[in-house]
């Protein structure tokens, strides 16, 4: 009986380890794809952003994050407003990440750690980015669904992008009485301003 439990435990460990390396490999491919876009000096800022936006939209759980970030405003909105909000949010997310990448200047990075939390079914992948004066740890939260991976959050210096966005959106939603339709206008204006800063 003891042997049986040992075998089950051993198999469990192997599955965990395979799952961890699989998600790390997937993430590395996607990160390298984005970094390649930054290294290519022949592309314009706009086309570089559009390419990054496609990659981010494909790999992030954009709609799920958008719903979480909207909080209670989500419930009161109609279908078209929600659809418009999702579109605007996905662009907002891409603009945020592209903006963080603006300072990228060929720094080396390494995926140093991958922990799988079987309770939440989320992998936490630590990425160490090296620069001349030290290094920075970025943690990616990755979840598998329908045979593929999605990024559900990004943490820099213990600060979650999703939680910060939720606080920020909640503050602005309060000013429009949690009306998602009115909020979309604010989000659209912000996206336009951010987009202009990125491409210029």
């Amino acid at each position: 009986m003891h042997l049986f439990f040992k075998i089950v435990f051993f198999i469990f460990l192997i599955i965990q380890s395979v799952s961890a390396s699989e998600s790390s490999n997937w993430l590395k491919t996607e990160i390298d794809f984005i970094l390649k876009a930054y290294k290519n000096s022949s592309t314009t800022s706009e086309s570089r952003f559009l390419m990054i936006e496609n990659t981010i939209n494909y790999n992030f759980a954009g709609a799920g994050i958008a719903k979480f970030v909207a909080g209670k405003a989500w419930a009161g909105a109609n279908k078209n407003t929600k659809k418009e909000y999702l579109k605007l949010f996905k662009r907002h997310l891409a603009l945020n990440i592209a903006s963080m990448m603006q300072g990228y200047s060929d720094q080396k990075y390494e995926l140093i750690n991958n922990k799988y939390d079987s309770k939440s079914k989320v992998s936490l992948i630590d990425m160490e980015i090296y620069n001349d004066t030290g290094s920075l740890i970025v943690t990616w939260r990755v979840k598998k669904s329908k045979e593929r991976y999605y990024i559900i959050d990004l943490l820099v210096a213990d600060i979650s992008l999703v939680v910060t966005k939720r606080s920020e959106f909640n503050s602005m939603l309060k000013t429009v009485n949690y009306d998602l339709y009115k909020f979309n206008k604010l989000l659209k204006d912000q996206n336009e301003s951010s987009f202009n800063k990125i491409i210029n």
Partner: protein
Amino acid sequence: MPFLKIIIISFLFFTMPIWAKGSDSVKTSSLDFETSNFEDEIYDPFEPVNRVIFSFNNTADKIILEPVAKGYKKLPPPIQTGIGNFINNLKMPLVIVNQLLQKQGKNAVESSGRFVINSTAGLFGLIDVAEKIGLEQKQEDFGQTLATWGVGDGFYVVLPIFGPSNLRDTTGMVLTYTTDPINYYAVSEGEAWVLPVRTATNAIDQRSKIIDEVNALRDNSLDYYTAVKSSYYQNRKAAILNIDDNSQTPLPLISIEFE
């Protein structure tokens, strides 16, 4: 003057539980959306005043601190690293005190080792020799100590020049400035200029490490004030809990089935 300081510190210390109680009463309601227990709202009763100070700080950052930090970034990397190491080493005596106050005996011994090694073999702290032999740098301050003693955050406050804080961390900061042995020695020797120079150098060194991150947040936030407030609280919470790995930070429940 020292008597006045004691009165102010005592007042802040003893009134904090009252403010903390107010802070703890702010909870989020989840309605139909899935969340874990996030507090959407941080207790910020002086928000209008805080926003004015924040706006002033933001302008000061744009016209003074950020350009200076960008200039600092142009220094050769070993010089930047040396300055950063030197400043961090000066903080060590109080880090050790706070580790002891938090009953972190092992960390206090390691930090003492770090301080001795870096102050001698590391040429007055310019070279982080201790890191190379496995003595990792750990930060503790009076704000964290008060938190581990059960003192609540109190209300959120934006301090002129110093930026985001809360009542507990501001008290911690006052304690740091008044009890730091290096500051005390400099003042007693008639070299009080050391204090603002040390503070400014620390601010420039820290700011130079987050130029892109701050710009990304500033350029893309719908409400930059709230984004900074949320970031401050998340970062402090992790520091108080001594979270070394992010598996312990709260996980937002994102519904992937929705994709």
